[in-house]
């Protein structure tokens, strides 16, 4: 597992208060992990802070699974 994936999963576990086993790469934030729209905003802000990337609104809308987040961050982090 990549280092980005580890850090992303750690943030998701912390913010959503879910068990680490549930945070698979295919897990959908809303459908599988019980996130609401405000949770998504919080997660996006946490990713931005952790990785020093900017995730614009149109990109954030497309991030629905853990894997989407990891892929976006890997493609855009400096």
């Amino acid at each position, binding site marked *: 597992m990549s280092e980005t994936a580890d850090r992303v999963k750690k943030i998701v576990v912390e913010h959503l208060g879910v068990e680490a086993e549930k945070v698979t790469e295919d897990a959908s934030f809303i459908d599988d992990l019980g996130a*609401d729209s*405000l949770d998504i905003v*919080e997660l996006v*802000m946490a990713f931005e802070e952790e990785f020093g990337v900017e995730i614009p609104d149109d990109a954030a809308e497309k991030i629905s699974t853990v894997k989407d987040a990891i892929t976006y961050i890997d493609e855009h982090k400096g």
Partner: protein
Amino acid sequence: MFDLTGMTALVTGASGGIGSAIAKGLAAQGARLAVSGSNVAKLEAFLGELGGEGHVAVPCDLSDAAAVDALVPQAVEALGGRIDILVNNAGVTRDNLAMRMKDDEWDQVIRVNLEAAFRLIRAAAKPMMKQRFGRVVSITSVVGQTGNPGQANYAASKAGLVGMSKALAQELASRNITVNCVAPGFIRSAMTDVLPDAQKQALTARIPAGDLGTGEDIAAAVVYLASKEAGYVTGQTIHVNGGMAMV
């Protein structure tokens, strides 16, 4: 009840008439304060007057967007990493009949009274969401509800705060963050002291309570809304006006 011990608060316009009463009221209930204002000397003097331990001054010009965006992070750092209460109290007037009102008079009032409040709430929402606790109280005005000739800009800014607070109350309620307003009527302050006596008498005649209010009357409502006990109250406006407008 209404104990604020262990809580921290940022109060804008804290060296003014109503603002200083609000700051004193919150401090008296045990909150630690970051007091803000544009006049550094006045602010430092007020900090001395406030006494107590752990309060800080964070000067800011609320017409400067970049300075406003930096204010909440500054306050959070100065208060040791928490912001439980945000009181948007600072406000300006640039009264003029609409037909004579300059663009600048409109812009200045909207920028300080409404836009700065939005910027501060937006910045404070982040730590408040993490804390799963927050209390936002914006000071509006009876004229936001009733209107007042010569104050199209001011009335718009205050009514704007009410609508904005209702939207934000809905966005943030699930995180135990409440967003409310306190709407003063005519309160003894620098803003009302300058009115001619005849006008003051005419005003008083319209107030069932028979007198102008005080900063302490406003502070009591703010303390309530800032308290843990008011957790189920959000998106509301408490009118403190001696009965001059009942809404």
